[in-house]
């Protein structure tokens, strides 16, 4: 994976708030976020539950409106979803009445990408091979395990060949063993496709193993607390040196200290 110098996502004073109708109040989820993400970079967002990580990703994808500031992709203000940005969901969000293949083809049906039927077929095939699911084209999501469902979710996100991959806690619902395997897959896929990835997680280990940079976000209102650079060589997942190194332990400790107070705050409901 080569990180270029070109900024692909630029957030300037980005603020996102939600209306709490019942209390006639406004909840500020994210406040004054300034973040530049380079093309080909793997950025991981960590922070306590409810700190606005998902809001950031949703703003980049164009799913939710911003209340202030701006978020630009390739210099253009984000107003709506587009085929250059794809998302992987925590609960997979696969259409249960469609087969694996049909789920992956969904983006082609919803928008005109100007590619031929031949190429669509070829791309679906490539995506399935990339996530190691060849042979499961005709299976339905309910017939697959959690890990396999998320592979379908990733394949669907790759189908439009997006520049930016947004992942909202994609492995949170997957068991620990499969999760490690999936992290390795994620690292491999992103380096093979050269995509920019914005990844949310609650796991500090996942953040350090996957991220080029880890952005720590504070709790309500969500602000950037610190950005931690991770300089381990890739691939990291099958390199047992990484996890037992002193640097790893120090990074882990450092990030935990950053989120600890925030996490405590959440448990007290402040």
């Amino acid at each position, binding site marked *: 994976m080569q990180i270029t110098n070109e900024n692909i996502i630029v957030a300037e004073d980005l603020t996102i708030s939600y209306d709490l109708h019942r209390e006639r109040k406004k909840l500020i989820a994210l406040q004054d976020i300034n973040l530049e993400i380079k093309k080909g970079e793997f950025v991981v967002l960590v922070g306590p539950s409810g700190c606005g990580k998902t809001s950031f990703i949703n703003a980049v994808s164009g799913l939710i409106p911003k209340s202030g500031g701006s978020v630009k992709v390739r210099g253009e203000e984000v107003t709506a979803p587009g085929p250059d940005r794809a998302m992987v969901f925590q609960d997979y969000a696969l259409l249960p009445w469609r087969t694996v293949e049909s789920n992956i083809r969904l983006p082609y049906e*919803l928008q005109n990408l100007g590619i031929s039927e031949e190429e669509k077929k070829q791309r679906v095939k490539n995506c399935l091979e990339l996530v190691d699911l060849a042979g499961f084209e005709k299976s339905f999501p*309910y017939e697959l395990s959690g890990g396999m469902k998320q592979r379908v979710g990733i394949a669907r996100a790759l189908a439009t060949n997006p520049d930016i991959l947004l992942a909202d806690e994609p492995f949170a619902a997957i068991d620990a063993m499969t999760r490690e395997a999936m992290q390795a897959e994620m690292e491999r896929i992103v380096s093979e496709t050269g995509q920019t990835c914005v990844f949310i997680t609650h796991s500090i280990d996942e953040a350090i193993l996957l991220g080029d940079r880890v952005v720590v976000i504070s709790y309500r209102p969500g602000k950037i607390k610190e950005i931690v650079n991770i300089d381990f060589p890739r691939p990291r997942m099958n390199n047992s040196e990484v*996890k037992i190194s002193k640097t790893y332990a120090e990074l882990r400790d450092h990030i935990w200290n950053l989120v600890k107070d925030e996490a405590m705050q959440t448990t007290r409901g402040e």
Partner: protein
Amino acid sequence: MAKATEQIQYETDDPNRIQDVGWTFKEVWRRTRGFVVTSVNLIIFFILWEIVTTYGNINSLFLPKASAMFQELWIGMTTRAPEGAVFSGSILDHFLHSFKNLMTGLAIAMAIGIPGGLLMGGNKYVESILSPYVWALASLPRIALVPLFILFLGFTTTMQVTIIVISAVFPIVINAWAGVKTTEKSLLAAAKVFGANRVQLYYKVVLPYTLPFIISGIQQGIGRGLIGVVIAELFGGSNGLGYLIQRSADTFNTAMTFAVLLLLIVMSLSLINFTRWLEAKVAPWRNVNHL
């Protein structure tokens, strides 16, 4: 870490992982036991009924022999009334009348209920305008409306069908409405991220998601509609299964009454099982455990 990955690969790729067991007695029994047990159960039930009514001191006016009931059912279902008869004693004639009314009523209920429910789920204003009327009519015991409909429409087939429609339409409306409202947010978000416009959102996500809800609404509608059929015919009519129950009981032909009741049970169960089959067919992912 590497080891875990290898192991998973091995488990899914080993061709010997799934082995052919073939047909064993246990397997055959596992598949057929439901049918066998039910059949034996019912046969014993009717034999006991026959024995009790033959040797017990029971007035056949109150409880006819099981064989008399089946005989009445057989004769009633195989004969038709002659042309121009004022009253038919044939169960088949009355059954066809009721069945036709039920199907017409259900078709009208679906034609009103499905679009109505979808609109209510899809549009806040339609929902707030219509919901008080839907809840009011859905909570009113439908039987209370029968005298009114007789007053409006007389002792006619139109009156009977209207009562069936009013009985069956609300479960369909409410289920379609609930289906739209409960469509999973993440599915909608996914469709939006991958470029769906408003029309596609309904066509590709909301409608398929709501389909099993609509089918279970129709299933409940069949049950309610059947009540509507019998009530309408008991109160006002000179044909149909409800009327035949009334008439046979009035003329002390209890065997015929029981025969018609049995026919109603069979008809209701067949229709409901058909919709269950349909539901499992179109929405296998829901894996609903039915009673």
